[in-house]
């Protein structure tokens, strides 16, 4: 999630160079808008962390950021590189042990929203961050693994996922279910006794997908300005359903863009490089 932002020139009218924005900026802003003030938010590193901190810097000053390192209510003045940077501990309301953050805080379902990235995501919002390839034992690509994601996906009241849109990342069926979305569809989470509601939004660099209320299949409900539905479908690994109420999403405002850039420009205190 830390790759160099690509300039999405097709999204930018020629005469507004000063408000040009990258697809990562659009994703970040879009994700930050999904967070409401006062929410408790379990944050993964990278774009989720940037989006959550953007929300805190703009419309949601009382957003409570929780990182799996045990920092509850962290208020970092700059973006941490890892979930365990010192600034998180130093600004937190409370720092608890790793067993405690999972057992007392995440597992019982007291966190409003969990914010995840994914290497592979399927039609029913299941996440793979373990292995690419048909065999766990002889993987084509060995990914980092689960970390805290499965519990975030299972236990937060709702989940937001950010992922770049491509047929390699958005697939009919993930090679390995690391974190459960809606499994094979309606009723699956309930049968497993998962307490959270599951993915509410998937935010990509082209638009937003949301689960169909009945079938739970991810459905395109929002699209960024200048993006065609056909483009999205072409970069999706399943036959993408499109909502009858498809909306064109509002581009980042000047204030939002300024805030996200200020956040990313901010240098850690004491860092020299």
């Amino acid at each position: 999630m830390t790759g160099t932002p690509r300039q999405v020139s097709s999204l930018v009218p020629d005469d507004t160079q000063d408000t040009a924005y990258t697809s990562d900026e659009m994703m970040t802003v879009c994700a930050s808008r999904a967070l409401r003030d006062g929410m408790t938010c379990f944050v993964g590193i990278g774009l989720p962390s940037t989006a959550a901190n953007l929300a805190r810097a703009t419309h949601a000053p009382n957003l409570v950021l929780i990182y799996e390192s045990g920092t509850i209510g962290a208020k970092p003045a700059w973006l941490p590189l890892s979930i365990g940077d010192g600034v998180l501990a130093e600004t937190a309301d409370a720092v608890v042990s790793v067993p405690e953050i999972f057992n007392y805080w995440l597992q019982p379902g007291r966190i409003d929203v969990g914010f995840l990235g994914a290497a592979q995501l399927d039609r029913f919002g299941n996440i793979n961050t373990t292995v690419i390839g048909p065999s766990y034992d002889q993987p084509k690509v060995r990914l980092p693994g689960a970390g805290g994601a499965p519990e975030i996906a299972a236990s937060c009241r709702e989940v937001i996922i950010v992922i770049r849109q491509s047929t390699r990342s958005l697939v009919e069926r993930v090679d390995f279910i690391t974190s459960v979305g809606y499994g094979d569809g309606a009723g699956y989470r309930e049968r497993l006794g998962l307490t959270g509601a599951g993915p509410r939004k998937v935010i990509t660099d082209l638009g937003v997908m949301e689960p169909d209320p009945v079938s739970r299949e991810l459905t395109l409900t929002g699209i960024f300005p200048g993006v065609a539905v056909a483009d999205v479908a072409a970069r999706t690994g399943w036959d993408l359903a499109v909502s009858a109420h498809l909306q064109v999403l509002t581009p980042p405002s000047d204030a939002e863009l300024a805030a996200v850039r200020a956040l990313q420009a901010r240098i850690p205190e004491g860092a020299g490089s």
Partner: protein
Amino acid sequence: MAEFVSLADAIAASVFDGDAVAMEGFTHLIPFAAGHEVIRQERRDLTLIRMTPDVIYDQLIGAGCASRLIFSWGGNPGVGSLHRFRDAVENGWPSPLLLEEHRHAGMANRYVAGASGVPFAVLRGYRGTGLENLPGLDGQPTVKPITCPFTGETLTAVAALRPDVTIIHAQQADRAGNVQLWGIVGVQKEAVLAASRAVVTVEEIVDRLTPQPGAVVLPAWTVDYIACVPGGSHPSYALGYSQRDNDFYVAWDAISRDRERFGQWLKSDVQGPARPAADAGAVLTGAGNAVGASSRSAGDAWGGTA
């Protein structure tokens, strides 16, 4: 009861070929210097245990110390892949690496069970995921469904972890051998209490511990060996003593991507005559910014690309 020794003596006395070794520290306080000493002493066939086998285990795996890994997230935090880990898993280089893969909640609770003297812990989770059915190192499951005897609900049991030895880095020990760490305290207390033996490297030895907010204190009688190794968690950090050397983590991507370049790094920076001196050199720089500065120049030496 804690004994003060050199790092070399601590590792020689507590880590043996074939051992199950946990080095813990969740991003913060990772015992890198102790890991390098294990590489220098050429331990083999280790079962490495760690929630986040990040750069420290990438180094041990690449150096050929490990044949098995118990873990829940194997990446370079905020940077990307662990190339030595991937090379071992995908290509069996320098030797095959058998995996026992969990998730953070499972690993944390496995340590809790070990520290609590019970053979398993209960949690929600694993259900519906591929992790539910992966075998443990011996081919037997370490995750099983368990039924609540009161409600009939199905939950998940995970098997306790009991390392032969746990190694951690902490900010301070007092002269009696009581250890104090603070900041992000991770799962270190559980990992120490779950293990048969415990080794702690510390930033400094003080006459008396000044209680710190959020601190974990490990009484002297829970620790076997303490070695004073200032900067011993670099490129990780010790809150109050140093900052995380993010540049090194970024630089590690290029160093580790190539077997040959990794081998050069190993020779020059861990095994070679220069590196022990550099590790020892950290002793001299002591606390605060001094360590941060030396860390950063070290990072530059790796050709930092950040």
